[in-house]
Each structure stands twice: as structure tokens, then as C-alpha cells.
């Protein structure tokens, strides 16, 4: 920045140029915002609820031919739309609700799992989307329509010896598959030792030198996989095996001066990472004591090992070794404890401060990701879509409740950016379903 340090200005690299273009677009919006009168500002910050509902509901009833490329993702479309509507505190008409249950039932495979559309093969990601949609709809009919026994069989067939899961028969193995399997199994109360076995090893092998988590061992740390990996590790009670201080450091650095999150180091800001990265920080906010423990351990491992010949063993492996012991202690009583992790996560909630910049992120979502005509998007210049609408709103909800005493206690007006009517429903951050619907589902499935 300082002219004195620049001898000759090399031409900017692709990363720099792309970054500067986006920065200038975003700052233009913030600049405009700062110059307009307060009443115009609060108008600009207003969540266009009716417009969003209109856009979302329309997609539920009709999609143009361009959506053919999502023909193997239709349960995802259901989830993105119905979850976004639920976040906005609305419900869909009874007939649409029935039609959704009926449609997803046609995607359900007789041998377990949900497919991307009727007549397709079952797939773990669309299973996650279908189950989350049915939980969001709620009610006995929707919840009872899930064939848990068959679904469990499907998940066992997808389970790999290395601990990971395949997305579908002969499909790819990655951290997404692990999360979608574990999340579904957890919320449906069918998580057991067989499904959990070695999955922690697989996810651990995907944490990179940067601190974040990649899709496969060796790949680059990425927001989507980081959320998936961390949430899955929490759900199986093995989060303490990850290097959490490095994970936290990586993820908080993904929030940039554009105020939103990027997916990877030196990539561009994108509204959907409001949930993937914001969600990962929100989860870490609940793991503070474990992070502290790991930090203390790391600082002590040095002071203890002043003798040079000792240094490798103690600094290199000590933290790893202790977490392993701790984990083995837990895993003895695993089955019963693990089944309640999702619920305990909510019940053991304590008031704390967010570790990311919640207000800034809300600003990005409302001013840069929101389309005034309805729907939300990646960034200015991009077009709205259902995926980004879902994940921008999910991220916004996380921000609004990030200071709350209880996961669902109404936040103070000052922490909700824009008019208080912007307030969304709270979510369960491990599953990304509206909290109240999670509770209903948990009760339903724990009684089965």
C-alpha cells in the first residue's frame, strides 16, 4: 500500500485482479449506503420477506426448463426452498405440504435412501436433503414417511472400510458423504458404532496444514467441507481429535473486508459461505472449552521440552496422544451418549460472544447478497438462486442468534442488523433445520 515499499509495480495476478474487481463492487454498495439518509438506510437493510417468499414459493410450484440441469437434485430444491421459507417464519399451504411428502416418497428407494428424483438411484446428499425437508415440514405424516430401517441398510452399504462413506453405489467418497450420513443417522436416532467406525479417522485425515478441512485427504481446505467435517466430528463425539485452534484460526480468516466469507484462502467472497464458514465458527463458539484445553496443551508442550533431544516427541505428538486417550474413554459408552449429542448441543448452550464479525456478515448478506426483487445470491453481479437463498438466510439466522443466552431466546435489537422484523427463526447449527422442527423430530424419532 505504501508507495515507498513499491519499487516497481508488477502487473496484478489473476487472484489480485479478481479480488479487486469484487472489492470495488462491494465497496461501491457500502459507499452508497453510507451516504444516504438513515430512513433510506433502514429501507436498504430491510429483509424483503414478501419478495423472498414469493420467489421461493414460485420455485416450489414451477421451474423453467433451465432447471433440467438440477433434475438429479430435486430433493435439494425442496430443502433449499422449504427451509428458507421456514427460516422466514412461514409455512407452505397444506396441499403443497402433502404434495412435498408425496413427491419425496416417490424419490425414496424401496431398498432405502432418497434419490435425486423418482426412478433414480438413492444418494446420500439427496437423502440428507429429503430428511431435512420432511423434518422441516414436521408432523407425523411427514416424519413417518421415512423408512428408517431401510435407510439404515442403505447407509451401511455406503460405508467404506476406510471409515468414509460413498455418496451412492460405486460413487465418490468424501467428507460431504460423511456429514450427510452422520447427520441423517443422528437426527433419525439410528446412529450406531458401525456407522461411526473410523469415520473420525477419515475426517481427521482431511484436515489440512492450513487448519481447515478438505473434501479428500490432500485436497485444499474448503468452507463446505470444513462445516461438514466439523459438524460430523461433533455428532460422533470426536471433535477434540481435530486441531481446533488451527481450524478456528483458518475459518475466522475467511471473513474478509467485503464483510462476507470466502470459501478458501485467497478466493472470492460468496454469500453461501455465510452458512458454511459462519456455521463452522458458530459450532466452534460452542467448543470453546475444548479449544482452550488444546491451546494450553500446545503451550505447555514447549515449556516442558527444553531438552533439545526430547522436543520432537513431546511437541509433535503429545496433543494427538492425549486426545486419543480421551476419545477412547468416551467411546466405551459411545452408543447411548452419541445419540444425544444433537440434543445436548442445544441444551448445554451457554451465552457467549460470536468469534466472527456477526454484524459485518449481516451487512454483506442484506446489502450485497440480497436481491430487492426477492431471492439471495453469491455476490453482486450474480443472479439469485435457491441454493444461495437458503444458505444466505441460514447464515443470517446464525448471526442474529450468535449472542443469545439460549439457542432460541430473542436477541437484543442491537445485534439484529436492520429493522427487528428482519429476525429469522433460529436453527440447529449441526443439522441446519429450524430448531423447533428439530426438537419435534428428535422427540418423534427417540420414541420409535
Amino acid at each position, binding site marked *: *500500500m*505504501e508507495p515507498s515499499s513499491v519499487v516497481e509495480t508488477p502487473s496484478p495476478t*489473476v*487472484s*489480485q485482479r479478481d479480488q479487486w474487481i469484487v472489492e470495488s463492487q462491494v465497496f461501491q454498495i457500502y459507499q452508497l449506503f453510507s451516504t444516504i439518509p438513515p430512513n433510506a438506510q433502514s429501507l436498504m437493510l430491510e429483509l424483503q420477506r414478501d419478495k423472498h417468499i414469493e420467489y421461493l414459493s414460485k*420455485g416450489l*410450484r*414451477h*421451474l423453467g*426448463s433451465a*432447471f*433440467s440441469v438440477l*433434475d*438429479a*437434485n*430435486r430433493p435439494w430444491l*425442496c430443502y433449499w426452498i422449504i427451509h428458507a421459507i421456514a427460516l422466514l417464519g412461514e409455512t407452505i399451504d397444506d396441499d*403443497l405440504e402433502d*404434495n412435498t411428502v*408425496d*413427491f419425496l416418497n*416417490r424419490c425414496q428407494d424401496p431398498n432405502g435412501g432418497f434419490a*435425486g*428424483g*423418482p*426412478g*433414480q*438411484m438413492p*444418494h446420500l446428499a439427496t437423502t440428507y436433503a429429503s430428511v431435512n425437508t420432511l423434518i422441516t415440514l414436521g408432523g407425523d405424516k411427514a416424519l413417518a414417511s421415512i423408512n428408517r430401517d431401510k435407510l439404515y441398510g442403505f447407509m451401511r452399504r455406503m460405508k467404506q472400510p476406510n471409515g468414509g462413506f460413498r*455418496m*451412492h453405489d460405486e460413487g465418490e467418497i468424501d467428507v460431504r458423504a460423511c456429514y450427510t450420513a452422520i447427520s441423517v443417522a443422528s437426527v433419525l436416532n439410528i446412529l450406531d458404532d458401525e456407522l461411526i467406525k473410523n469415520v473420525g479417522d477419515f475426517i481427521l485425515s482431511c484436515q*489440512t*496444514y*492450513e487448519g481447515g478441512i478438505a473434501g*479428500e485427504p*490432500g*485436497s*485444499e481446505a474448503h468452507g463446505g467441507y470444513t462445516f461438514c467435517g466439523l459438524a460430523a466430528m461433533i455428532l460422533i463425539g470426536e471433535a477434540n481429535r481435530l486441531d481446533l485452534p488451527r481450524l478456528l484460526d483458518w475459518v*475466522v*480468516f475467511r*471473513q474478509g473486508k467485503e464483510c462476507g466469507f470466502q470459501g*478458501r484462502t*485467497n*478466493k472470492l467472497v460468496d454469500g453461501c459461505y455465510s452458512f458454511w464458514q459462519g456455521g463452522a465458527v458458530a459450532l466452534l463458539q460452542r467448543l470453546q472449552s475444548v479449544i482452550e484445553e488444546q*491451546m*494450553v496443551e*500446545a*503451550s*505447555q508442550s*514447549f515449556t516442558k521440552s527444553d531438552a533439545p533431544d526430547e522436543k*520432537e516427541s*513431546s511437541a*509433535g505428538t503429545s496433543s*494427538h496422544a492425549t486426545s486419543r486417550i480421551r476419545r477412547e474413554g468416551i467411546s466405551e459408552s459411545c452408543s447411548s451418549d452419541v445419540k444425544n449429542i444433537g440434543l445436548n448441543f442445544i441444551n448445554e448452550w451457554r451465552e457467549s*460472544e*460470536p*468469534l*466472527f*464479525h*456477526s454484524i459485518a456478515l449481516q451487512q454483506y448478506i442484506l446489502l450485497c447478497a440480497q436481491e430487492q426483487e426477492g431471492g439471495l445470491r453469491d455476490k453482486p453481479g450474480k443472479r439469485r438462486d435457491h441454493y444461495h437463498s437458503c444458505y444466505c438466510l441460514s447464515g443470517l439466522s446464525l448471526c442474529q442468534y450468535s449472542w443469545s443466552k439460549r439457542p432460541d431466546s430473542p436477541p437484543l435489537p442491537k445485534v439484529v442488523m436492520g429493522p427487528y422484523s428482519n429476525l429469522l427463526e433460529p436453527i440447529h447449527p449441526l443439522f441446519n433445520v429450524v430448531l423447533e422442527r428439530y426438537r419435534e423430530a428428535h422427540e418423534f424419532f427417540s420414541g420409535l
Partner: protein
Amino acid sequence: MAGKIEDESNDRVPLRLRPEWSDVTPIPQNNGPNPVVPINYSEEFSEVMDYFRAVYFANELSSRALSLTAEAISLNAGNYTVWHFRRSLLESLKVDLHVEREFVERVASGNSKNYQIWHHRRWVAEKLGLEARNSELEFTKKILSIDAKHYHAWSHRQWVLQTLGGWEDELNYCSELLAEDIFNNSAWNQRYFVITRSPFLGGIKAMRESEVLYTIEAIISYPENESSWRYLRGLYKDEATLYVNDTQVSSVCLKILRTKSNYLFALSTLLDLICLGYQPNEDFRDAIEALRTSDNEEQDSDIARTICSILEQVDPIRVNYWVWRKSRLPQAA
């Protein structure tokens, strides 16, 4: 003929008019009377999928089924069921997989950002074995020349290296990409992959010294580049003591701090070092002192606290994180 994408021109003959399909009864999608998220399929899309269902449900392992999967993929490359069926067709019909590779390449040229294309490509390469090595490395190189951070392309390339080999030139390739764009974090990640896993380089211990030099040079040229700082830290993964004791690390921090510009990562790195037990000397204290702004910072004898306070100021987007770090500093020695 197998594996050819039909021309997208208007002279496409509908399947129902093609004599070779006359014996097949298409199966419409079981969408129900009132489907949600209904897609207004084009006539062509519906017809192709209706015929696809007919052959798929009948498990018809024929060459006409194979060309039909190509049509279906050209309409929606994200349909994993179609790809899956295509693989069983390729196997049972013993199709030349070199031809299949070209097919994947054509599909990828339209849109390469879906899981199915890459999963399929991996399957083909696995079947072809060693002979596929160069073509796969070239293919990913081509994709990466257009989008140097393409996640799937990098994953595929790593799989090729690990399964089929070809490591010899990979470090050079990373250097080339980083010379073009030092901010390309994917190239840094690949570099880490190579130095830690290449069978020719002796692993991270053998590479550390030269990599530290390379990285420090990159940091000095662009101290605002987070990628190089994270890479530097990565070179000491699970070696905290080595990290803290290596004067090259602390020196580069000091050097950047003294320039008083773009010092965010130098400062946060120094904080990490101190948290791990590093004892900064007077030079560091002076450099930190010089960064303090007079306005509102509390006087503090603890250098780690001072660093956190500066970070709160100069890195306001992470203010909560720095406040939190400040409240969790290890007991000063």
C-alpha cells in the same frame, strides 16, 4: 458410434421416430399427480429420459443404451444414475475406454464443475491404468490453465499422482503456477501435497530447509499473502518446538513488522509463536511498540496482550477473535 454426443442442431430425430427404438416403450417419470419443484422439461429432455428409464429399468446392456446415456448426459451431466448405468454398459460392452475419455473431455468442456464427470473420469483412468497417466495430467493441466483453482481438477490430479505416478515434474509445475500467481492457494496446497507425499523428495523433513527459504522469499515479496504464511506454518506441522526455535520464522516476522505495512500476518504469526513459548527479545518489543497508535491502547507490559490490542485495531473484521485470543493467552512466563 458409442459415446458420441448428438449434435445440438435442429435436425435431431426424435427417438420415437428412430427405427432402432421402435420396440421400446418409454417410461414416463413417476412424478405423481401434483409434483413439487416440477421442471418444465423440454420435449427432447422428457423423451430422452423416458427412453432412458425404459432401458435402465430393463437393465438393457446394449450399444443403443450406451448412446442414449450420452444423449441424457448432454442434457444433464449431473445425473449420477445415468453415469452409473453408463459405466455398467462400458464394462459389459467392452468399449474402448480411450474413446470414453474423449467423451468425458467433451462433456467437461461444457461445464466441468460437477462431481459426476470427475468421478467418471477417475473410473476410466483407473481402468486404463498406467498408460492413462500422462493424458490425465495433461487433461487437468488444461482445465487448470483456464481455472487455476478448479477444486475437482486438483483432486483428480492428486489421485493420478498417487495412483499412477508422474511426480517427477510436479514441484516445477507448482513453482510455475506460483510464479504466475503467488496468491493461488490451490497451487500452494499442491506444493504441500508434493513435498509431503512425493516418493522422490524424501518427505517434509528433507524438504523443509529449501521450502522455508522459498516461502520466506514469497512472504517478503507479498507480506499480505495469507497463502505463503499458512504454508510456512504448515512446514512445521506437528513440530511446534522446531517452529518456535527456527530463527528464520521469527526473523521474517520482525522484518515485515519493521516495514510497518502489510504486517497483519507477521503479527498474528508472532502471536502464535509467543503462545507456543517463543520469548521475543527487545527488537520485537521495539517493533511492536512502533506499531502502537497513541489513541486508545492501554499500556501493557505483556507483549502478547499488546499484539492482540494492535490486531483488534488493524484487523477490525476479526476484532472478536483477537479479543478472545487476548482473554486466553497462556500465563506469561
